C-alpha cells in the first residue's frame, strides 16, 4: 500500500513537473521561455537524491514531451534519457562535490550533451532519409539561450536550496572517484 502511494506520488509529481515546464515555456517571454525546466529539475533531483531513479524519471518525462513534439518520435526520448544517464555517471564518478557551481557545470554539460545527441540522431535520420527536418541558424541561437538561462537558474536555485536544506549543503558525494 505504501509502495503504491509512493508510485502515485511520483507519478503525480511528474505530471505537475511537465505542466510546470509547459507553463514556463508558454508564459515566459523570449528568450526566457527557452529555460529547460526539465533538465533543471532533473539535475536538482539527481544532486539531492544521489539516485539512478533520475534516469527513469527522465525517460518518462521525455516520453511525455515527445507526444507533443513535431520531431521524429524517439529523437527527444533517446537524447534526453541518454544524456541524463551520462550526466549521472559524470556526477557520480567525476564531480567531487555538491555545490551550486557543480550544479551549473552539470546543467551546461547535460544540455550540451543533449543537443549533441539530438543533432547526431537527427543527422543519422537525415542520412537514411527518415526525416526532412533540418535546423536553421536561429535554432542554434535558441540552444545557446537555453544553455545560458538554464545554467544560471540551476545555480541560483541550488544556491537558495542549499541555504535551507541540509541535503543541498556543499559536501563530497558518495561513491565519488575523487573525493576531497
Amino acid at each position: 500500500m505504501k509502495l503504491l502511494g509512493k508510485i502515485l506520488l511520483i507519478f503525480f509529481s511528474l505530471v505537475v513537473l511537465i505542466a510546470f515546464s509547459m507553463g514556463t515555456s508558454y508564459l515566459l517571454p523570449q528568450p526566457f521561455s527557452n529555460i529547460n525546466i526539465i533538465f533543471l529539475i532533473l539535475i536538482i533531483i539527481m544532486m539531492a537524491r544521489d539516485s539512478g531513479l533520475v534516469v527513469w524519471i527522465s525517460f518518462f518525462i521525455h516520453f511525455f514531451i515527445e507526444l507533443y513534439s513535431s520531431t521524429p518520435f524517439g529523437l527527444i526520448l533517446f537524447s534526453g534519457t541518454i544524456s541524463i544517464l551520462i550526466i549521472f555517471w559524470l556526477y557520480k564518478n567525476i564531480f567531487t562535490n555538491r555545490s551550486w557551481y557543480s550544479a551549473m557545470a552539470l546543467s551546461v554539460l547535460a544540455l550540451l550533451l543533449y543537443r549533441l545527441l539530438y543533432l547526431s540522431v537527427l543527422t543519422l535520420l537525415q542520412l537514411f532519409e527518415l526525416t526532412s527536418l533540418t535546423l536553421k541558424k536561429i535554432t542554434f541561437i535558441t540552444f545557446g539561450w537555453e544553455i545560458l538561462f538554464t545554467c544560471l537558474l540551476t545555480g541560483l536555485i541550488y544556491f537558495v536550496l542549499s541555504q535551507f536544506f541540509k541535503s543541498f549543503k556543499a559536501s563530497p558525494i558518495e561513491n565519488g572517484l575523487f573525493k576531497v
Partner: protein
Amino acid sequence: MKTKLKTLISITIVIILTIVFHFAGWLSPVENFLHSLVKPGSELMYSISVSENSEDVELFSNNKKLIQAYKDLKTELLENKINLAELQLLQEENQELKKQLNFVESNKYLSVGVNVIGKNTEPTGNTLIVDRGKKDNIELGNIVITEKGVLVGKITSVDDHFSIVRLINDNQSKIAGTIINQEKSIGLVEGGYGISVHMNFVPQNEILTVGDTVVTSGLEEGIPRGLLIGKIEAIEKEAYQPFQKAVISPFVNLEKIILASIIIDTDNSN
C-alpha cells in the same frame, strides 16, 4: 565499466522498444491517458499566455484598517472579473467562429473547428497543439486557417484526439505563394526567421512593393489558391543573385491563436 555498458545497453533497448511500440500503436492507450491528464492544464496555461489582460496588478497601502475592507472588495471584484472574463472570452470566441464560418461557407470547404490547447516546448520548432485528431477525420498535411482564411500552418502530426500544427514561421515550413502584384510573382514562403516569414525564389526582374499581399498560389496539392499569408515588410535584392527575397509579416499573430479551422476537404461542395 561493464556494468555501465550493460546499463547503457538496457536503457537503449527500452527506448528502442518504446519507439517500436509507439509506431505499432500499442502505446496508444497510455499516450491517450497521459494526454488527457495534461490537456486541461496545458489549455489553461496556453489561454493565459495568449490573453492580453495584464491589469490585475493592484497596489495596496499598508494601513491595517483598510486591509479587511480591501479583502472583501477584492473577493467581490474577483468574482466579477471571472464573470466578465468568461463573457469576453465567449464574445471573442463567438465573433471568431462567425468569421471563420463565413469564410469556410463562402469557399465551400469542409472544415473542422479546433481549439488550440498548447504549443511546442522544444526550441526546434514553432508548432501548436489542437484538440482534434484522427477521430475527427484530420489527416497529415491538412491546412489550418483562422478568420477570413488566413493561413496558419499545416498538420504535421495526428493522434486520435489531438494534432500538431506546423506554423508557417516554423523552420520546416515551405508553402508555395503568390504576390498580388502586376506579375503575380510566385515564390516559396519559408519559416525559420523568427516571427516573420521569407518569400524566396522570386525572380529578380519582377517588381515587388512593400505592403503587397501574399497569398497561397494553389500550386501545391491540398492547399487552395488565395489563402492569405501576410504582407511584404521588406525586400532584399542583391544585384548578383538570380532571385530576390521578400520579408513577410503574417496577417495573424501566430503566438496568440486560440481558435482555428482545419480544412479537411478543399473539393467539397456541400
